[in-house]
């Protein structure tokens, strides 16, 4: 009988403990109920940019009493899924979210984000012209060219390259390279030159010419292959007609994928599984002479504590290429995130007040010391431009960026593109077959979602965001001093 009593007591205790813990642990280690106190929760992937945001936000808390807490998750699908599932549930688990630029269609298109135009128009602290039109468009506009802004840039990013200056400037290397290829060993202005340089420095197993992402996961592979697709004159789709067939499987797009496959022979083994972490590691361990990488990581490459070759590391803008139409294009993937407000937040006004303050020049200058800001006056500020060797490059590089489809179906389209491109680079399918299958599958997704695909008689690949000097009949080098 005694034992029975004990069992009942144990069960009662466990239930009581569960309820007590559930109700009373909303704050770390203490039974606090927020009451009128407002706490804003920001979802982002962990990292220095998020850390910096939360550090700066403490000043906002000191000024207003509104707390800003981070709900940081791992980079990649878990981060996207975290935001997407909260939106699917129409939950108020977070107030602010920082999402990848390409997710704007999915989240804003799904009706989950607060339209920021009325807030910006009323604001005496921010105005639309604080950012370049392309910056606002890439991170916050949906639908494209609609002028409707759902997010402001929080971490602007673009692809670039870093290389081993000590190797590039070595007289023996320079003369040997010139003797073999007939031109100076220098920062490549075309992908063909980059391939020559990669080939020159490939001396396995000690050294390889190039490191680049190639993994099937998230957007690793296609953030690189897209650059090549675009520079060869290809496109992911035609946003005006919703056609994908004739674009991603066009001869120009296939040229880009084939060029990537060609480059793989100058990369360390296993590049088809690589993300940025592997690219960084290969460079930091002296395995590669050049790396195709995000500007986000350039700070680490410039830091002697993290990169033993920091003093010998140079930074550059990615090259372009002459496509089969004879035009030279320079385009590359953009990265980074915008910050938006959840429509289901209970503190929309407080969330806006925080964004409004955080996006001001004063805060963005502090943030810009660690991460890439989107504000034009900070990007133009000589102090910021001269803070290191790559900020000036970033300002120029961003003008040449392009992005995935800004559609609500982005996540599905990305997965198909990743899968089929990966099939092509791993030899499971020919590039032609892989891209044709990709186009077929992606169009089915669009059709199922209700998009009307208008067939155009002639396949005209538009350069959707191609700035001057993109699509020119001659190679136009970029030199940033």
């Amino acid at each position, binding site marked *: 009988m005694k034992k029975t009593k004990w069992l009942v007591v144990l069960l009662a205790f466990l239930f009581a403990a569960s309820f007590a813990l559930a109700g009373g642990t909303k704050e770390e280690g203490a039974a606090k109920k927020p009451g009128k106190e407002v706490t804003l929760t920001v979802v982002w992937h962990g990292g220095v940019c998020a850390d910096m945001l939360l550090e700066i936000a403490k000043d906002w808390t000191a000024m207003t009493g509104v707390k800003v807490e981070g709900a940081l998750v791992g980079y990649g699908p878990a981060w996207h899924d975290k935001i997407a599932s909260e939106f699917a549930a129409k939950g108020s688990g977070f107030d602010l979210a920082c999402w990848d630029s390409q997710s704007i269609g999915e989240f804003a298109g799904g009706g989950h984000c607060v339209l920021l135009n009325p807030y910006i128009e009323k604001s005496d602290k921010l105005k639309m012209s604080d950012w370049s039109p392309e910056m606002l468009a890439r991170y916050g506009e949906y639908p494209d060219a609609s002028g409707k802004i759902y997010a402001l840039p929080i971490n602007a990013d673009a692809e670039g390259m870093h290389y081993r200056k000590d190797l590039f400037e070595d007289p023996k290397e320079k003369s040997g390279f010139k003797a073999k290829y007939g031109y100076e060993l220098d920062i490549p202005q075309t992908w063909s030159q980059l391939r020559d340089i990669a080939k020159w420095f490939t001396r396995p197993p000690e050294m390889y010419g190039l490191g680049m992402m190639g993994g099937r996961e998230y957007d690793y592979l296609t953030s690189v292959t897209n650059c090549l697709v675009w520079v060869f004159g290809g496109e992911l789709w035609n946003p005006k007609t919703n056609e994908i067939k004739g674009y991603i499987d066009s001869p120009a797009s296939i040229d880009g994928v084939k060029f990537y496959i060609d480059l793989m022979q100058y990369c360390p083994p296993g590049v088809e599984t690589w993300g940025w972490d592997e690219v960084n590691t290969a460079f930091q361990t002296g395995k590669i002479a050049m790396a195709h990488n995000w500007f986000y990581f350039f700070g*680490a490459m410039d830091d002697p504590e993290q990169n033993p070759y920091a003093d010998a590391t140079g930074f550059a803008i990615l090259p372009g290429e002459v496509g089969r139409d004879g035009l030279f294009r320079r385009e590359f993937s953009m990265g980074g995130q915008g910050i938006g407000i959840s429509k289901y937040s209970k503190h929309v006004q407080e969330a806006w007040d925080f964004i409004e303050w955080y996006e001001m020049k004063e805060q963005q200058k502090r943030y810009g010391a660690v991460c890439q800001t989107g504000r034009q006056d900070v990007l133009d500020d000589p102090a910021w431009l001269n803070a290191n060797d790559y900020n000036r490059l970033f300002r120029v590089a961003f003008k040449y960026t392009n992005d995935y489809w800004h559609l609500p179906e982005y996540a599905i389209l990305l997965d198909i593109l990743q899968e089929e491109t990966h099939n092509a680079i791993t030899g499971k399918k020919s590039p032609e077959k892989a891209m044709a299958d990709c186009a077929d599958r992606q169009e089915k997704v669009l059709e199922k979602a209700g998009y009307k695909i208008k067939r155009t008689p002639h396949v005209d690949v538009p350069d959707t965001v191609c700035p001057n000097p993109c699509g020119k009949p001659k190679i136009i080098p970029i030199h940033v001093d």
Partner: protein
Amino acid sequence: MTGRKSIAKRIVFIIILAVILIYTLFPLYWLFLASIKTRIDLFTIPPKFFFKPTFNHYKRLFIYTTLETGEEQQTRFLFWLTNSVIEAGIGTTLAVVFGTMAGYINSRMEYTGKKDFMFFVLSTRMLPPVAIIVPLYIVFARFRLADTRFGMILLYTLIGLGLATWIMKGFFDGIPTEVEEAAFVNGYTRFQAFIKILVPMVKGGIAATAGFCFIFAWNEFTFASIIATRYAMTLPPRIVAFMGTSGFEWGIVAASGYILIIPILVLFILIRKYILMGMTFGVLGRK
């Protein structure tokens, strides 16, 4: 001759044992090395076995140095660790308590739809978490259970319950009904017979079941990464968010992984003799 044979056998046995030991312990050794190496040392090929160790990763689990001022602040590592202990611990206990009862009922009683019920219980373990996470999250959010410790405890209880029911049924099946009948003759009620006679007989099974449920809840990633946001966040999903300027902070990930392993290691040492019993649903390892 026989002596030589026995020595040879012993040597072979020792070699096999050594291989198994290396196979089992090397990952733990490697994880520890990773936790005390710098990023450069960690990725150097061929791997470095002799290097200048750093315990900075362990420090950084608990201390955050601000980027602007270099001021040191406490991290939330202990909070996430506490959440893991509470959510996995209470979830496991409840799953085992109810699973033991359910196992007994389904071992001894006949009722309409019993087979269907047992299949249903089993089916809760059939779908991969990723397939049910969004609808589950919607349900949790609607009932205000998302991002609460109670919600996570409930989740781990429900997940563990299916496994616990099936394992414990196997243990009760192995006890002859005559044992309870003898207790009934002595004036015990069914509940008293269950608590006083049967539960002590299956305590090995209970320990093994608790071990399996706890390991699952302790390591669980997918549900926690979606359902928990801040207040109920556990360690496994938070570990992957350790990212620095160079990419993933593998040293910190390894250090926190090492800390994450300790409770499991202790638990396994405590219940090691019951593990085989649990894995075979009580058929093997019973003494």
